[in-house]
């Protein structure tokens, strides 16, 4: 059963608003009062995947769902998709454009860092049909 569900629109190439969804996610989690480390991990995952949609994907959305066991993030876009997921997960691999690099991105560290911070990561992607990231962060059991 989900306790909360919120979705946020993400616009391709919109660097003015890029990151706003992730910051909203962080705000919601802080207001609920989750453990700071879990908030940090979830916010990093949200931000990196949102930036990837802006830079590499098409228009898309980020959906935050909370239940009693985990924080879930679903990030979908309608871009061209990730051709080789294993390659994309390698540190340093990036197809970022000159503009992306000027904005401070393109280190090829985003997906590896999502993997590091998430307890669960599934990347669904077909060439030409956009990318879908399913990310889960387990709530700490006291």
């Amino acid at each position, binding site marked *: 059963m989900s306790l909360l569900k919120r979705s946020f629109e993400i616009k391709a190439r919109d660097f003015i608003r890029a*990151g706003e969804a992730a910051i909203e996610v962080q705000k919601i989690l802080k207001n609920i009062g989750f453990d700071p480390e879990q908030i940090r991990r979830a916010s990093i995952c949200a931000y990196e995947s949102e930036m990837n949609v802006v830079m590499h994907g098409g228009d898309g959305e980020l959906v935050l769902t909370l239940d009693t066991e985990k924080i879930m993030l679903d990030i979908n876009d309608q871009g061209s998709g990730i051709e080789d997921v294993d390659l994309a997960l390698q540190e340093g691999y990036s197809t970022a454009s000159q503009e992306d690099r000027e904005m401070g991105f393109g280190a090829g560290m985003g997906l590896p860092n999502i993997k590091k911070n998430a307890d669960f990561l599934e990347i669904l992607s077909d060439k030409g049909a956009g990318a879908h990231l399913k990310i889960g962060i387990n709530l700490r059991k006291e």
Partner: protein
Amino acid sequence: MKLSEIKDALRAELITADDCLNMYLRAGTASDLMSDLLTGPTNGALLLTGLCNVQVVRTSVVAGVAAVVFVREKHPTPEMIAQAQEHGLPLLSTSFTMFSACGRLFDKGLRGVETKAPRP
């Protein structure tokens, strides 16, 4: 190290509200690569950067960076200042280069975010 001491050591200008000069920074980090920054333990740290755009502010908020210094006289835009104020993130600007700014802070006792030095 206190933000006021950092400001003095870098002869920096504090761009956001001056109600944060007593803030304590536990460590320092320097980067122009935002995703690289997000891989480290940057919570509560000072960020020195030569990059000056709104993503620096957003990345800092996500990373839990406590304050940001722009080196080489880079000056944040009104949009960046507004966002930083909203999140209580102090922004400073120094005319020192990245290397000199880091060196000056290290000299005064500020250390990096790593918990142990790599083995030789």
